[in-house]
């Protein structure tokens, strides 16, 4: 999966905006939105929020977790624990990136948030690499991956799955007579 496709899925999350225009309720296929009144906060999907923001038709209210203090706590917890801690949003990385790229003027302390989220991400990816390493070296057949986000899974997917398949191929060829040995996918 391409990471832009993960971002595409992240854009379905809702975010609060404060519009500066008025518009009746919209009946989209995926659900109703609005009505929009100037100054009144309303929930919209991120793709629409970003579009409206780029046309300077709204102000985006950052999600509650996008806050320096909360993120600092998270970072400490993430560094302390050996396992993956629960994340505030299943698309925290993508949302941070999207909102900070297009609406950094609506988000207080944008630079600090960017650094914090990056720190959390780096810590988690380091853990992910470690667990992938032990998964492979112990020849495990099953792993539980709670609290991992789609983007995190996606960064390791191609490499991990291909290596597992290769190793499986090599191993099944080592055991002569096993019916699983007929690997033809190359």
């Amino acid at each position: 999966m391409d990471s832009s496709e993960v971002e595409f899925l992240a854009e379905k999350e809702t975010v609060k905006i404060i519009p500066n225009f008025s518009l009746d309720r919209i009946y989209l296929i995926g659900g109703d939105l609005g009505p929009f009144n100037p100054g009144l906060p309303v929930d919209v999907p991120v793709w629409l929020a970003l579009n409206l923001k780029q046309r300077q038709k709204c102000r985006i209210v950052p999600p509650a977790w996008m806050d320096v203090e909360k993120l600092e706590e998270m970072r400490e917890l993430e560094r302390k624990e050996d396992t993956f801690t629960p994340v505030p949003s299943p698309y925290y990385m993508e949302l941070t990136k999207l909102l900070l790229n297009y609406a950094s003027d609506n988000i207080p302390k944008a630079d600090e948030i960017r650094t914090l989220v990056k720190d959390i991400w780096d810590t988690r990816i380091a853990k992910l690499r470690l667990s992938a390493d032990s998964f492979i070296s112990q020849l495990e057949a099953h792993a539980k991956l709670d609290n991992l986000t789609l983007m995190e899974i996606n960064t390791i997917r191609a490499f991990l799955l291909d290596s597992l398949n290769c190793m499986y191929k090599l191993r099944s060829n080592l055991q002569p007579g096993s019916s699983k040995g007929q690997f033809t996918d190359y």
Partner: protein
Amino acid sequence: MSDALSDAGSDVNQDDAQEDVMTPAELIAKLEEAWLNEKFSPELLENKSEVVECVMEQLSHMDANLQRVKKGDAKASIHRMEIDRIRFVLSSYLRSRLRKIEKFFPHVLEREKSRGEGDPSLLSPEEFAFAKEYYANTETYLKAVALKRMPPNLQTVDMLKAVPEPCLDSFVFLRVKDRQENILVEPETDDQREYVVDLEEGSQHLMRYRTIAPLVSSGAVQLI
């Protein structure tokens, strides 16, 4: 102008009440589920032509309504964006199916042939036509470039043996939607023992596709 669009919305909502009552939003969710499952499963999954057809209907309905709207209308542009997003998912879904059909065509056709009378078909009628044509074209091509110059006893190719089978032993990532108990995990090596795991609702796992393939088609797990 905005009347046309509000109408569009309510029409669409009623339209869908047909057979099994599903809101358009649920329909789109179904399509996205099918899209991700198809993207990540090593083999071709059962076709979801009702979902595809319903979505196409919704899209053309909305398209038709948008035709009646003046250019530059704020609502229309939002509707267009939504349509584009849905269309992207739809075509990506259909494309990933075609890619698998091209990759595994003899096996896909074989499975379709051996399927029982009442079983749901793997391919939609269009996909079936595509697979057959692809098979015929590949065969003709092989004949034209090489086979007819071979000695007579080597002039046939068994497509089923020539084309690799989908590798059901690949690992997949999945999220559990309905709790499952006692899923058997086969050992990786001979000196390991097999064991069972319970899949809790909402949990995520990495395991071999073969073990959980029935759960994917029943919708109890979602590949991610």
